[in-house]
């Protein structure tokens, strides 16, 4: 019982990160029309930039410790946004009307470019990254009915969950109540229709790219203390993010977040079974093929529908 609860408590924050990743990927898929295989990699470079900024702040004695981290985070987020906008302006705009396959291949090329740049400018080594909320974990000891149940909450996980929640709510609000959100949704549903009512779809695409990659940078910064910082730090997160988007169905953005949570918990649950130890990623990926085939619109297609 403890194991199960523990799996869920570790799985949920992890899953929230996959979900946020998937959310960005689904957003690009919906509006810009491509599957972005460089999503995690552009975020990885931004995390490296964040790390370098932090080290610079500390090295120059401008800021110290946690302050340096909090000052460096905006730098990373801005870098992510700039990457997103540049990818759209310089590359995607050229091939948008050629073929979807060429957009996909360009994102694969970008994957290589980002990884190569990270190897070249920084290093292939693993570097540690500070937690947002350090400190000892909270331990919940069950009493009475829950006698013997012991669950550990890591502090950083709580920060992760809070941030994920805040972002999800604010993205939902952005999508639902602002003009930009409306434009993004319109462009995703019907590009020609969106253009005919005066929406600049090119600008919407740039915004979508910038926004999604910024989100991915948030994920990167949150996950960095666990994976540590290196050129392939977000590879699995990105693949699982895509998986989350598939689970949620690309048609619904928030489905991706639910999908991410499910994957995060599932990953931990598989871990409990000793025989399956180590196979969790493989199992999840084989599951994905089944879902793609039998429920290509995602698990929540019927229930959530076209929320965004």
């Amino acid at each position, binding site marked *: 019982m403890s194991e199960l609860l523990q799996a869920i408590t570790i799985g949920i924050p992890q899953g929230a990160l996959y979900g946020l990743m998937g959310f960005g990927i689904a957003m690009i898929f919906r509006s810009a029309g491509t599957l972005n295989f460089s999503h995690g990699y552009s975020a990885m470079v931004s995390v490296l930039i964040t790390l370098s900024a932090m080290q610079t702040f500390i090295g120059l004695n401008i800021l110290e410790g946690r302050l340096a981290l909090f000052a460096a985070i905006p730098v990373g987020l801005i870098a992510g946004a700039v990457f997103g906008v540049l990818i759209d302006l310089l590359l995607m705009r050229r091939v948008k009307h050629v073929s979807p396959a060429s957009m996909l291949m360009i994102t694969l090329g970008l994957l290589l*470019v980002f990884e190569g*740049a990270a190897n070249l400018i920084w290093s292939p080594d693993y570097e540690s990254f500070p937690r947002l909320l350090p400190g000892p974990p909270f331990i919940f000891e069950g009493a009475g009915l829950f006698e013997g149940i012991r669950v550990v909450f890591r502090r950083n996980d709580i920060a992760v969950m809070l941030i994920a929640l805040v972002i999800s709510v604010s993205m939902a609000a952005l999508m639902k109540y602002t003009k930009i959100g409306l434009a993004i949704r319109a462009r995703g549903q019907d590009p020609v229709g969106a253009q005919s009512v005066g929406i600049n779809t090119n600008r919407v695409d740039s915004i979508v790219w910038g926004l999604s990659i910024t989100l991915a940078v948030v994920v990167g910064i949150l996950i960095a203390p666990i994976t540590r910082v290196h050129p392939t730090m977000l590879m699995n997160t990105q693949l699982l993010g895509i998986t989350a988007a598939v689970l949620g169905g690309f048609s619904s953005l928030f489905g991706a977040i639910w999908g991410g949570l499910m994957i995060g918990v599932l990953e931990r649950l598989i871990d409990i079974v000793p025989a399956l130890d180590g196979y969790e*990623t493989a199992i*999840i990926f084989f599951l*994905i093929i089944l879902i793609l*085939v039998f429920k290509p619109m995602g698990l929540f297609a019927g229930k959530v529908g076209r929320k965004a």
Partner: protein
Amino acid sequence: MKRIFLLGSGILAAGLIAFLLTGGTYTLGNLSLVLVWAIAGMGMVIIIGNTGQLSLGHAAFMAIGAYSTAIFTELLPGIYGGMLLGTLIGLFIATVFALLIGLPALRLRGYYLAIATIAFGVGMEQAIRAMPFPNPVYNIPHILSFTRPGPIRDIATYVLMTALFLLFYAIGLVILKSPFGVKFRMIRDSQVAARSYGTNLAANKLQAFIVSAVFCALAGSMYAVTQGVIQPVTFGLMAAIDLLLIIIIGGAILLEGGLIGSFIIVGLPALVLEELVPPGSLTLIYGILLIIFVIALPSGIATELYIMWNRKMQVPYMAVLRFLYRLKPVKGSFVETIEGKQMYYVAQGEGPILLYIHGNTGSHQWFREVMDVPGYRTVAIDLMNFGRSDRIETTDDIDTYADHVAAFIDQLGLETCYVAGHSFGGAVAMSLAIRYPNKVRRMLLIDSAPIDGLPLGDDSEARIEALRRHYGVLKSAIGKVMGSRSKDRHLHSLLTKEALLMNREAYFNHALALDDFDYSEGAASFNTPALVIRGVLDPLISDEDARRTAEALKAELQVFDNIGHALIIEDPEAFKKVAVTFDKDSTESV
């Protein structure tokens, strides 16, 4: 066959050059690796470039091939059969997985297929990582372990890889040229259209998927064999991207793209780049290359080369062929005709002269098999502007050509002779016989241009320009005219080379000249005995044309079954019989 031979000798030559340049066999190991990835690349060419199914999971099939080979080699140590067994089992497992994955996944389109296959690829890598092997990093003995590591092993491996590559290249070529390949490409171009033609989409996609999986599994197996060490990461996401890079840069349509791409992606880093660029920057370079190719050269190097070869290189290529062909010694002699121009001819036998006049893009060689007609001295000329005869200014007038032939007859010191004209040469013969009636004793027209000219088709200018600018087009046109004899490769290529010798300015003008002339009026006073013959299968001269000509010339018409445009090469014996009896008949009648 020729392509395979050329490619094979090219690969072996590359190995030899590498050996000579470096003075060691180390680079051969790298080149073997290039061939291994090229086999996988050909698999990708089949599934992505020709079937249009964007699969990113084929690295997993390589992993299957590699691990099967490794496991069985380890299980049966010291037995060469173990490795072979492992390879075969690897191919079998890959087929089973291709069925299992392909059956559901190929229902998906575009991105969804890409996601499903990449999930398969990464999932397979993770599964192998987690499997309870002693160690997922496998160290396996080398396939050619009967020799110690060293030059002999490197060379043997290289030769073996070349043979395997060529074998799979041939298999790929056969598949792509077969009806299967056509169906694959139909699916790529339009699933709706393919289905409306009755293609079984699911079955054909699956076939392409399995074939490509087998290619990749063999490549994986050979990877294990040549490298001796395998680890899961070799076949991970990066390998999937490498496979894609190979065909994007190499070219996804032609099988050669796999080899070119593999050389650039796998070969260059190992051979040169590694020392030239800072470590780790290769990924960056290839990323940039991939983006540049997708934006600027989406069809890849092999396809671009193919296009360039056909668009730009054909004229120089034909010039080179022409130059080389001219170097061959000739046996005939030259005679001065008009204004010092030389006309080339060959002759054989004794007796009255039978003058052969060849057709358009022809030469005396068209008569090479009918030179020994009993009772005649046969003389085959190259008309002016053709073959080895001199070039003249006028290219669009049959009469000018006939004038030169008349001068030729005078120069030989002949009063009169028998004339046989084929096709275009028939028009020249008619011009000669009508305008110089006493020079021609009897005339034989073989599938000749009709008496009132051969009208120019609507699109002939473009078609004729294509003949002038493309060796392959010229060759196939010659083949058509050769009828059943086009199967004789040697003769086909000889006659095509002879066609190259024709004045390049004359291609279209000859068609104009054929369109232009009309000897119907001249034929009114024509009383030279003549015979018109036509092959039933002739694609150029219709039955109606031949009848009209025979009627105007008051000549007999003889029709040959199962013969096309060129009786003289399709059935030389029949022609010789005609040539002999034609004379007898007419002497009797005179």
